[in-house]
């Protein structure tokens, strides 16, 4: 009886064990076979993570290797409102740590329908780290690159800026996007319960953007901007533009527009200040354009520098009467004197001898009416009417720089061609991109070396006691240049009596040119003449540039006796 009972108990135990084993086996089969793919996916979701590794944006350097635009690490703080336990506390603590308004975050944290809201994008990494240490539930952090412009206002219009997503929006940041922006990478990793990476399943490394080296020099650029600011203040002008070119290479050493702005603060700056006006804006050049007429007349053997003309005080062209800027009696002047004294009558006389077809061809040959191809987005071609659309009076306007619109960089590169023995070089801002060969610089001959030399001699006459650009003289150095004073077009189709553009384009040293400097001042008050408003600014820039670039003077004795004013 006792043994039968024991057997029954053993059988019952066996049955229980068999059932338990069957259940375990069944469950194992269910999990390992039937549900395996889904569970595997769930596990992978929990432990595997595919992360995008952002590619750093390339740095923009000046020609001396100083960074002008650089990527700095920032931390983006975001929240998952569904995970936030105490929205008020999170808002207050995030507000105080990141120095933002808690009232703006609080309503977003309360919105449980969303699972992602930005608390602050590209926050200061130290402040974000301090907030992270507080361990607030629902807050999370990830690193992002923030574009920074360490020299603030220096070359801001040229550099442009990159937006919140680190893509170029304006200026070189936009124009060089294909080089500066890298390619983000991808990494699939396995994390342990503490969030540590314990394995990398697959990895595609990011390709950082390429660094770009400009032809700009930050020291010279800062000086040019400073001189422009002072000139604007002195003459209560609306704006100003300056370009410094190396005539031997076509490289832009400085390019400034005033008023300027701090590129770090681009979001709060009116768009009118952001334009690189030397490239995107046009103006009627006035007398600085006369050099085209003289180059044409000399090259086509219409005149020589010594050919003389008896010039009446004014000249009639179609329905217009044009006189010189300063009233004078009938005078006999050589061609060289006509340029030195910026005679409108003399220049129009030469243009009439040339005829409109030849003059039109020379305007095109100097590159006016078409873009220079400078490596900056949004270049304006200027406005140069085709000859077949010229009216009867156009031959009286265009030769003296009216009825034609140019950009500062077009004008500077035209003078740079004369400084470079008659060979025009494409102006450029980018010296090279790291890892790539420097781009080929386009070039073409405009005038012969002999004519370029003659014009340089004639332009030196402008910067003399008899010329209109005496204020541009730099003690110790030979300077060639040309003044320009142009009335601005008014909205009624005529020209303003009060608003002018005063400009000066000069070449230093004229003996062995190292810099072509253009200064253009928009709507100066008190004085309007390029020789009085823009020429002194040219002189200040030239004096600094020559000393900075260690250019020895042509005549050291005159440097000592001149008692030049301090540089600054």
């Amino acid at each position, binding site marked *: 009886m006792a043994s039968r009972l024991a057997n029954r108990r053993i059988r019952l135990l066996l049955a229980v064990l068999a059932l338990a084993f069957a259940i375990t086996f069944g469950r194992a089969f269910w999990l390992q076979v039937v549900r395996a793919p889904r569970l595997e996916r769930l596990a992978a979701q929990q432990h595997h993570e595919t992360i995008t590794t952002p590619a750093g944006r390339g740095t923009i350097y000046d020609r001396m290797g100083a*960074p*002008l635009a650089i990527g*700095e690490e920032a931390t983006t703080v975001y929240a998952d409102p569904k995970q936030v336990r105490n929205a008020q506390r999170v808002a207050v603590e995030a507000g105080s740590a990141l120095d933002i308004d808690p009232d703006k975050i609080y309503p977003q944290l309360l919105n449980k329908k969303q699972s992602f809201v930005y608390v602050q994008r590209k926050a200061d990494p130290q402040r974000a780290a301090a907030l992270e240490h507080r361990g607030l539930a629902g807050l999370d952090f990830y690193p992002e690159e923030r574009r920074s412009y360490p*020299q603030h206002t*220096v070359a801001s219009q040229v550099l442009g800026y990159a937006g919140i997503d680190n893509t170029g929006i304006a200026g070189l940041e936009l124009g060089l996007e294909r080089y500066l922006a890298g390619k983000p990478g991808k990494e699939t990793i396995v994390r342990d319960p503490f969030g*540590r990476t*314990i394995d990398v399943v697959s990895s595609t490394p990011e390709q950082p953007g390429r660094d770009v080296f400009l032809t700009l020099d*930050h020291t010279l650029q800062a000086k040019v901007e400073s001189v422009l600011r002072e000139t604007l203040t002195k003459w209560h002008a609306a704006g100003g533009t300056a370009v410094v070119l190396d005539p031997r290479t076509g490289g832009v050493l400085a390019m400034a527009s005033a008023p300027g702005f701090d590129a770090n603060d681009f979001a709060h700056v009116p768009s009118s200040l952001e334009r690189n006006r030397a490239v995107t804006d046009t103006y009627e050049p006035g007398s600085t354009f006369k050099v085209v007429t003289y180059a044409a007349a000399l090259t086509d053997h219409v005149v020589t520098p010594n050919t003389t003309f008896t010039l009446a005080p004014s000249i009639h062209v179609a329905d217009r009467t044009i006189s010189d800027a300063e009233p004078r009696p009938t005078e006999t002047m050589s061609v060289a004197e006509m340029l030195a004294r910026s005679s409108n009558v003399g220049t129009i006389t030469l243009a009439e001898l040339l005829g409109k077809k030849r003059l039109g061809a020379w305007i095109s040959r100097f590159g006016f009416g078409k873009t220079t191809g400078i490596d900056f987005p949004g270049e304006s071609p200027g406005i140069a009417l085709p000859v077949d659309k010229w009216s009867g009076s156009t031959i009286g306007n265009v030769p003296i720089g009216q009825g034609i619109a140019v950009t500062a960089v077009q004008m500077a590169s035209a003078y740079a061609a004369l400084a470079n023995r008659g060979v025009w070089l494409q102006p450029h801002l980018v010296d090279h991109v790291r890892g790539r060969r420097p781009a080929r610089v386009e070039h073409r001959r405009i005038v012969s070396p002999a004519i370029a030399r003659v014009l340089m001699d004639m332009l030196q006459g402008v910067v003399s006691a008899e010329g209109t650009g005496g204020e541009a003289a730099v003690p110790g150095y030979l300077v060639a240049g040309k003044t320009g004073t142009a009335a601005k077009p008014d909205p009624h189709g005529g020209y303003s009596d009060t608003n002018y553009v005063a400009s000066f384009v000069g070449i230093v040293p004229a003996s062995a040119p190292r810099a072509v400097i253009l200064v253009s001042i928009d709507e100066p008050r008190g004085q309007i003449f390029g020789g009085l408003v823009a020429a002194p600014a040219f002189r200040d820039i030239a004096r600094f540039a020559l000393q900075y670039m260690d250019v020895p003077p042509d005549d050291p004795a005159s440097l000592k006796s001149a008692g*030049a004013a301090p540089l*600054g």
Partner: protein
Amino acid sequence: MIGALLAGVVFMNVAVLRLNIRLDRLGRDRAGLRADNAQLASQLSSAQAAARIQALARKELGVQPALAQETTYIRLKP
């Protein structure tokens, strides 16, 4: 024998795990150092801005920009 092999496999896995964790930490350190480097380069560029140096030199040291006539150029014979 099998026990020793199993122990070896476990030891190897733990070692790989530790190395991966160390690699992760080093990766973070590298990213941090790169960030510091970029920030320092930015600070250096700000510090060496010509306008800032000139203003500081004038204000703190009373230095004046050199006069053009005080610069001496020497022509060396080749």
